[in-house]
């Protein structure tokens, strides 16, 4: 079982390397060698596409976990800076601090004003620490709440990008009320009189994710995951074996398709060939179009309708059998 996306994608990374080399050779070689070089490139390309096809056509739950965590996958700010204009990042919870694991602010989306919020991962070591691996602290959720309230005050739709392994589990977060912060953020989302769209772009990690995901429309990228517990944590509890993540991922059925089948999300957004990380432009367009369509659908709903639609949708979640009372 591969433990990381890099490990799992090794065959692809190898062929990418070979392809790169072949292309360099092609640039330098003489005209007579050109045909052979191009044939080689075509061969590698086809091989690469075949491997992608094999690897990505039927990703298992664990592979989805790995892909959802891929370091080259577009993160929240990548979508925000591409899909939005006039973005002014706003900071602070007006209580304690400014959390860099959650970003947000005012922006225009296709000429219309919105509030945008997202969990932000870091791409290099320093940035990852700066973002606390997208594990938000209480002040992150309280910043989100403040922005949600601002959205409500000025009748701005909300777009949120969900991408977190979990909320920050540290001692400091505990003492400043990480539980309360998550709960209050969920509560606020249900009280909103404006449309909200959440897009799960990578990891939808338990309470940390739901804190900004209780939206009128919840969209989920094809290879992103959404889970009540990280598979490693589940494996540790069930089999005392964190390494059994793959087994746990299968048991948890944390894929977008599974969430859709159970009515827990509204839509699965297809990823480009080989995953979102292979084609930022396409996936960004997909996400942009889906947000646009969702906002358009919600546009006709009154504030009361929006609250009711949100309530009814989440109210229906759960599977119970109801027998006549036995007592």
């Amino acid at each position, binding site marked *: 079982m591969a433990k990381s996306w890099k490990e799992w994608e090794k065959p692809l990374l190898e062929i990418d390397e070979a392809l790169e080399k072949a292309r360099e050779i092609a640039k330098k070689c003489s005209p007579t060698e050109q045909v052979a070089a191009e044939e080689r490139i075509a061969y590698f390309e086809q091989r690469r596409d075949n491997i992608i096809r094999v690897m990505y056509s039927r990703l298992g739950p664990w592979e989805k976990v790995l892909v959802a965590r891929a370091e080259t996958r577009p993160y929240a700010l990548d979508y925000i800076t591409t899909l939005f204009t006039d973005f002014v990042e706003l900071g602070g919870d007006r209580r304690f601090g400014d959390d860099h694991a959650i970003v947000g602010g005012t922006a225009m989306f296709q000429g219309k004003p919105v509030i945008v919020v997202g969990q932000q991962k870091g791409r290099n070591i320093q940035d990852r620490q700066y973002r606390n691996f997208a594990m938000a602290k209480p002040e992150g959720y309280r910043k989100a709440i403040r922005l949600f309230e601002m959205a409500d005050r000025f009748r701005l739709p909300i777009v949120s990008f969900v991408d977190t392994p979990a909320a920050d589990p540290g001692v400091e977060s505990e003492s400043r009320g990480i539980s*309360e912060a998550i709960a209050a953020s*969920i509560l606020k989302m249900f009280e909103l009189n404006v449309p909200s769209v959440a897009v799960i772009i990578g990891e939808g990690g338990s309470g940390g994710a739901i804190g900004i995901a209780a939206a009128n429309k919840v969209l989920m990228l094809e290879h992103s995951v959404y889970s009540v517990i990280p598979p490693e944590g589940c494996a540790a509890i069930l089999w005392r074996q964190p390494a059994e993540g793959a087994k746990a991922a299968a048991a948890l059925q944390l894929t977008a398709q599974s969430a859709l089948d159970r009515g827990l999300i509204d839509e699965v957004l297809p990823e480009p060939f080989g995953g979102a990380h292979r084609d930022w432009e396409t996936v960004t367009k997909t996400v942009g179009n889906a947000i646009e369509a969702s906002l358009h659908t919600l546009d006709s709903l009154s504030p009361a309708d929006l609250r009711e639609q949100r309530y009814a949708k989440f109210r229906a979640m759960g599977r119970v059998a109801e027998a006549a009372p036995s007592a």
Partner: protein
Amino acid sequence: MLGKKKATGLDGSFVQCLGCKKTLFRREFEENLFVCQMCGHHHRLSWRQRAEITFDEGSFSEADAGLRSVDTLEFPEYREKLESAIAKTGINDSVVSGRATLDGVPVSTAIADFSFMGGSMGSVAGEKITRTLERAATDRIPAIVFCASGGARMQEGLLSLMQMAKTTAAVAKCREAGAPYIAVFTDPTMAGVLASYASVADVILAEPKSLVGFAGARVAAQAQVMKVPDDFQKAEFALRSGMIDKVVERRAMRSTLSSLVRVLIGGSR
């Protein structure tokens, strides 16, 4: 029944306190509401004991008793665990919901029982909490929820996580209707339950020394290397951190709830 942490029965007349390990007269112990007379340790209660010591005698009537969990994910061993918990506890899931009166005031209530799979919240617990809050909202009566949970029920996967959203949405309904909602944290109130409906109650009381926290093992590991207070993740720590209103001894809980309930419904009558 005292759940997992039940005071050990020595013989019919005696029990051993789980706090100080001293031997206590069972009758005195029970008359003291299962609180040790020697060290004050609050032993866990079954839902039925809680209902009995809290509400007007015989006033509790159960609702939603027919709700049962569905093993929708066919999760390893879930069905067996459910069945054994049902057999052991005599209830169908970790929360019992219903109606009762408190000094004559009608309330909607839910009581978690930790002895049922660690009080974990799956679809059934989430549904019962939601209905409890909805009944409060509809009738504009107070909701009183006794929490006791290790968190979400992993075995129901994402469905369990969504109970966080669903139950919290029901709190919004209470707020909209102006129905007061009081949560009582008992030992333990953790993770997915703490991070949803439990923490957004209008008033939060807690029993002394109850475990109250978001993160489990991971934070515990960190706590070992960091300097943290002795009562970290206890009710008293939560009080100091501003997260709960009051730590209330079990013998004072009923009267405290009664005062609160009468004041909070008073303004809207």
